[in-house]
């Protein structure tokens, strides 16, 4: 399989793909579920996931700002989903490294959205970058870049990207 061409999908097929990707992402990954992470959008370049604000995820009790760890998980997971999309199938991947710059604190009470793009993949390695914001994509709270090992042939038993078949939506 190759990269999923999001722009070539009709709205129903795209909605079905988003739903399946989100279900695989949110329901089969316990840490994503615990954080409440959801995939909320797909586009030709990658995907967008959201971390809802939750008092249990606060890193600084005096400001109410979310802990960087929750943002790290959001970014890592969204990059993974973007790579699945770029690969066209949920092959096993493993994060090699991840670098996150915190540009400004996440506004307390606001959900954080992460847009991740897999901008290059080779046979063994995928490269992704991501930004996170609290509503204004032009004013990100974090910027990240990561590299991921690809274990080709080790498809995950996760029925995430198979939904784009004819007659299914």
């Amino acid at each position, binding site marked *: 399989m190759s990269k999923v061409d999001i722009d070539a999908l009709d709205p129903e097929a795209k909605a079905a793909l988003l739903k399946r990707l989100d279900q695989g992402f949110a329901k089969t990954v316990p*840490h994503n579920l615990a954080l409440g992470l959801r995939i909320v959008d797909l586009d030709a370049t990658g995907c967008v996931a959201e971390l809802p604000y939750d008092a249990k995820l606060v*890193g600084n*009790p005096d400001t109410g700002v979310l*802990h*960087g*760890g929750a943002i790290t998980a959001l970014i*890592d997971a969204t990059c993974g989903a973007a790579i699945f999309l770029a690969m066209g199938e949920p092959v096993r991947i*493993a994060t090699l490294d991840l*670098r996150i710059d915190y540009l400004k604190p996440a506004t307390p009470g606001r959900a954080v959205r992460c847009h991740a793009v897999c901008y290059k993949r080779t046979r063994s390695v995928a490269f992704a970058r991501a930004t996170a914001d609290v509503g204004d994509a032009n004013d990100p709270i974090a910027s990240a870049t990561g590299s991921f090992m690809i274990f080709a042939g080790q498809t*995950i038993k996760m029925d995430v990207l198979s939904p784009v078949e004819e007659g299914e939506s």
Partner: protein
Amino acid sequence: MSDVHDFMPLLQRARASGDLEELVRVVPYSSFLGLEMHVEGDRLVGTLPFLESNIGNYSIPALHGGATGAFLESVAVFELLYRSDTATLPKVINISIEYLRTARAKDMFSRAELIQRSRRVATVRAVAFQDDEAHPVAAATVHLLLVSPEELHRD
């Protein structure tokens, strides 16, 4: 917010008693992650007890890269707090995480080292391991901004 924590008395109590529980629990996310910090000799050791909610991949099974990164960041922050007299939590400027081997579905441990500290910024290196400290699972370099209580609410 009116109820601003003064970390100094917390730090002083932690150093005197060797019990960091009170300090760690001031950060709500520590409890979400399951983080524990202990004093061993003159060093701090962080423990991430295995929790199903920290799994990232069921089929291996392996811990989530986000949970591992969060653990390293937390241990780095508490290392800096423990080693310095700061009244507030530092802000993370950036974190660079290296994932060295699969973090298995079991307890993880970490030690951090304060590499450099100036008036405004500190560099801390944290390393995590599971079975054998000589074979680390992950490592992170964290740059932290030291802030005064007045600066806490600024960008």
